[in-house]
């Protein structure tokens, strides 16, 4: 038994490592200073996909990402870790998409891929934290969803059993394939890059990358088809432009405020014993402590 697995992955700015250079003095985000990374929970999803491939050799993993040209980096990262194929969905018409327009575009790309049993992604991306795209892709494809998954326990026939991590416990559910699964950060971490695969796919590129980087070697790209990363536009996936990008997004950003953290109602104390003693007395008198 083999399965066709599609991993939905996103390239995100590393908001977890917002260092000193990442915020400008006026409180705006300095995007250039944030490294672009493989969304962490999408890596947890990748590991679940690789695990299915281990258990059912011959299964195929396709990494699908939507983003600008540089997001091809995500596809290579997926290939280095054991994916079989990568597809970049990229078009100016996709720009400014909210979660609904994003899931429409992804669902059209998935329809174009055609064969799929399991679509798996991280629970949410660290730049938006919405957790919406997985369920919305499932709805657009008319298939069930299992969110907050921690482990795929087993697949038997056309039924999959998944452990979910809830706020105060766990739940084990059984569901027919095909299905969309979103994976929690509490799931197993992804295995590292494989050195052999790194050598194999180091020069895997999209057509656009080859053009902009002036990479020639046509013969090599012709004789090694696995080095050609697929790139799809709106037309390629036969998507309705009106439902993509900004025009396909019911939610609009009215304004953005930069967060400038400031202390209100705070007092500064010295580390002198007298100061601390007085604070303790005050807290005890107000019945805050004790």
């Amino acid at each position, binding site marked *: 038994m083999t399965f066709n697995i599609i991993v939905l992955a996103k390239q995100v*700015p590393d*908001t*977890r490592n*917002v260092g000193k250079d*990442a*915020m400008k003095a006026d409180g705006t*985000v300095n995007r250039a200073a944030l490294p672009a990374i493989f969304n962490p929970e999408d890596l947890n999803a990748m590991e679940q996909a690789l695990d299915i491939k281990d258990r059912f050799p011959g299964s195929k993993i396709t990494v699908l990402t939507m983003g600008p040209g540089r997001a091809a980096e995500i596809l290579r990262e997926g290939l280095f870790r054991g994916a079989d194929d990568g597809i970049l969905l990229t078009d100016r018409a996709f720009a400014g998409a*909210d*979660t*609904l327009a994003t*899931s429409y575009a992804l669902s059209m790309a998935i329809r174009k891929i055609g064969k799929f049993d399991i679509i798996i992604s991280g629970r949410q991306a*660290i*730049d*938006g*934290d*919405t*957790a*919406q*795209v*997985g*369920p*919305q892709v*499932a*709805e*657009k494809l008319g298939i*069930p*969803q*299992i*969110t*907050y998954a921690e482990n795929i326990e087993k697949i038997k026939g056309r039924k999959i*059993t998944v452990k*979910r991590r*809830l*706020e*105060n*416990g*766990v*739940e*084990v*559910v*059984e*569901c*027919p394939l095909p299905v969309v699964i979103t994976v929690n950060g*509490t799931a197993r971490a992804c295995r590292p890059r494989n050195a052999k695969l790194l050598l194999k796919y180091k020069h895997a590129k999209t057509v656009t990358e080859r053009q902009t980087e002036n990479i020639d070697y046509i013969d090599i790209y012709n004789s090694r088809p696995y080095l050609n990363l697929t790139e799809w536009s709106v037309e390629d996936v036969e998507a309705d432009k009106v439902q993509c990008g900004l025009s396909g*997004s*019911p*939610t*609009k*950003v*009215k*304004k*953005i*405020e*930069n*967060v400038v953290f400031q202390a209100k109602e705070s007092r500064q104390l010295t580390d002198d014993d007298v100061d601390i003693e007085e604070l303790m007395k005050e*807290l005890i008198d*107000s019945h*805050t*402590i004790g």
Partner: protein
Amino acid sequence: MNNLFVYLEIEEGVVADVSLELLTKGRSLASQLDCKLEVIAAGSAADLEKIGEQVFPYGVDLLHLFKDDRLSPYTTLPHTSILAELFQKEQPQICLMGATIIGRDLGPRVSSLLGSGLTADCTSLEIGDHEDKKAGKIYKNLLYQIRPAFGGNIVAWIINPDCRPQMATVREGVMKKEIFDPYYKGETIEHDVADFVKEEDFVVNIIDRHIEKSKVNIKNSPIIVSGGYGVGSKENFQLLYQLANVLGAEVGASRAAVDAGFVEHERQVGQTGITVRPKLYIACGIS
């Protein structure tokens, strides 16, 4: 028509705190908009027995009941069908749900089905107007859905000018629950579940479920000792636990400390964690 709806989360017959908090917010928004506050309760007959008495004091005008033993515990598809069908009939202007595992599973599915916009994890909800200068249009009484983004480094104001309902999820503890009127009496409608849910909606089976009461009660703790990345290690956090023990406090943590693996996620405080209102907050190693 065009009322404000809140989806109720129910565990063992008890309405979740997050839903009650949304009723308080929903009541004040509904009064401001001069519309009714309606709520949806879907679950087993046993779970729904005492919902009315729990929610009416929060100012609920209409309670929609959907009784079917297969609706408890929650699974995605039947609850989605209920909301989608009901919303197509009732055309609500706003729908609020908890930014819980259930709300974040159900909300996006419903929003995709209805083609309406959804904003996750709002920290503030307000009513206001919006002018679209390009289209030369003025929208009255929109819901401003205010939420942190980009790891909490910015705050975005989101609106849904054209699609209805305007949907938003809110985390537990962000809104404050308050009884509106202990004698408030709303109406109850019991719907026929078969008119809303298809047999094939029950394809997902829950084969095992363990729910434990959370041991960490950081939300209601009057004193919190919080640690950040500066604490340095999981071992150093023991110092915070010792202090908390002496003070009768709970230990909290910043996102950086949780991401670094010093502390479990259920202790995370702040915009991306739990909203807390302690009397005393001691921050250690948080910049």
